[in-house]
C-alpha cells in the first residue's frame, strides 16, 4: 500500500517535472491593422493615444506587437497604400491579425477614405482569407465607439451599419470576434455623459502645451481612455479562449 502511494507520488512528481520542462512557448506576433483609434502616436501629440499602445504592455515575452494601424485609413486605403501587403508578406504561422476599421470607411464626407458597405465587407473577407492562407489567426474587432449621448443621457451607437458588417463577416467565416463597439459603448455608459469625456482628447485652451488652443474630440482617446479600451480587448481575448490568452501577463 505504502509502495503504491509512493509510486503515485513519484508519478505526480514526474508529471510536475515534465510540465516544468515543456518547450518554451513558440514566439508569436500580433499584427494590428486599423485606424487612428488603434495606432501609435509620437510623444509630440501626447496625450493622444491609440489603444494599441497600452495594449502592447500586457503580454509576456513570447509576444511581439506590430502596430501597423495608421490614422485616417479605411480598409480601402490601407490596402491601396500597400500597407496590408506588407503585413501579409511578414505573417508567420500562429501569428495573430487584429483588424479594426470602420471610422474612416463609413465617413461619407471624406471621399478619399470612404468605403462602401460592400467593399468594406469584401476587404474584411480579404484580410481574413489572406491571413488564414498564411496560417495566421485573424481576429475581427468592431470599431470602438465614439462618445455620443442622447438627450436622456444614454450612450448612442455610432457605427451601426459598419459594426453590423464586421459581426456578419465574423459569423459567416467563423472568425473570432471582439465586439469592441458594444463593449466600449457600455464603458461610456458606465462613466456617464460628463465623465466619459475624461477618456477622450478633451483639453482646455492653455491646459497642455501640445494643444495650445485646446481640443474637444469625441473619437480619439487620451492615455487613460486608450488603456480602458485596451483592457476591453484583453477581456475579449480571454472571453474567446484564444491561445493568446495564455500569453497575457500573469501575476
Amino acid at each position, binding site marked *: 500500500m505504502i509502495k503504491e502511494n509512493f509510486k503515485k507520488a513519484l508519478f505526480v512528481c514526474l508529471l510536475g517535472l515534465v510540465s516544468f520542462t515543456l518547450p518554451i512557448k513558440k514566439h508569436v506576433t500580433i499584427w494590428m491593422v486599423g485606424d487612428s483609434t488603434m495606432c501609435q502616436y509620437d*510623444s*509630440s501629440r*501626447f*496625450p493622444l493615444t491609440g489603444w494599441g499602445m*497600452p495594449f502592447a*504592455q*500586457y503580454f509576456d515575452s513570447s509576444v511581439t506587437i506590430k502596430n501597423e494601424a495608421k490614422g485616417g485609413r479605411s480598409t480601402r486605403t490601407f490596402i491601396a497604400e500597400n500597407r496590408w501587403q506588407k503585413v501579409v508578406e511578414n505573417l508567420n504561422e500562429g501569428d495573430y491579425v487584429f483588424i479594426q476599421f470602420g471610422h474612416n470607411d463609413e465617413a461619407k464626407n471624406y471621399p478619399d477614405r470612404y468605403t462602401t458597405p460592400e467593399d468594406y465587407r469584401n476587404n474584411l473577407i480579404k484580410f481574413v482569407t489572406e491571413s488564414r492562407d498564411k496560417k495566421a489567426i485573424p481576429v475581427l474587432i468592431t470599431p470602438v465607439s465614439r462618445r455620443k449621448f442622447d438627450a436622456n443621457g444614454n450612450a448612442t451607437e455610432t457605427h451601426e451599419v459598419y459594426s453590423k458588417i464586421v459581426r456578419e463577416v465574423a459569423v459567416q467565416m467563423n472568425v473570432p470576434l471582439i465586439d469592441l463597439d458594444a463593449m466600449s459603448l457600455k464603458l461610456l455608459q458606465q462613466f456617464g455623459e460628463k*465623465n466619459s469625456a*475624461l477618456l477622450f482628447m478633451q483639453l482646455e485652451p492653455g*491646459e*497642455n*502645451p*501640445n*494643444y*495650445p*488652443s485646446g*481640443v*474637444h*474630440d469625441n473619437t480619439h482617446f*487620451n*492615455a*487613460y481612455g486608450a*488603456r480602458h479600451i485596451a*483592457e476591453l480587448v*484583453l*477581456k475579449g481575448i480571454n472571453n474567446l479562449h484564444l491561445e493568446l490568452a495564455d500569453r*497575457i*501577463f*500573469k*501575476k
Partner: protein
Amino acid sequence: MSFAIAPNKKITVYLIGDSTMADKEVNAYPETGWGMPFHYFFDSTVVVDNRAKNGRSTRTFIEEGRWKPVVENLNEGDYVLIQFGHNDEVPTKRSYTTPEQFTANLVKFVSEARNKKAVPVLITPVARRKFDSSGKIEETHAVYTRLVKDVATKYKVPLIDLDAKSQELVKQFGPESSKYLYNYLSPGENPHYPTGRKDDTHFSELGARKMAEIVLHEIKNLNLELANHIRAVPLKEKK
C-alpha cells in the same frame, strides 16, 4: 571667440522625489508618476531626467547615493525639481525622516544645487485622495508641506505648492470622480492588478498628466527661464 560659447547647450531638468513622481516599471502600469507625462512638454533644448524613486524619503534618497550623482552632473542653468514628503512623514515607515532632518535635507538639496549654479525648485508633496464624511477634502501633508514652504521662504527658492493645487483639482472632481485620477482598478480589469486596486496615493495616467500640467503651469507662473523652453505649437483651429 564667439564659438567659445557652448552653442545649443541642453538644459537638464532633474526630478528628485518619490513614487508619485517616478517613472514606473511596465508591470506596474497603469500606475503613473507625474514625472512620466512631464517628459512630453518641453522643446528639444530640454532633457527631463527623472531620478525619482518609489518609496524614497529625502533621507533614504541621500543615503542610497541617489542625490550625489545628480549633484555631480549638474551644470549651470540646469534645474532640480524636488518633491518629497510622502515617505518622510510616516513614522512607521523605514524611510521616516524627522521634521528637522527633512528640513536639513531640503536645505542640502537647495544649497548644493546652487553651488553648481543650478536652479532648485521646491514642490510640496502632491495630495492624497482623502475626503471626510461630509465630502470635504482633507489635507494629508500638513506638517511636511509647511516645512517645504518654510525652506522656500527662508532660502528664496521658487516654490510650487502642488499640495494645495492638487487638492483643488481633487476637490473639483469630488469624492467619487476623483477616483479616476488615482490608480483605481476593479478585480479582473487589468492583468497587472488581477485582484483590483484602490489606491488613494498613486495616480492613473489621467491623474499623473493633470498633476504634470499643474507643475508646468506653475513653472510659467513663477516666470522661470525654463518656461521659455516649453514646447511651442502654433495655435490652430480644430479641423
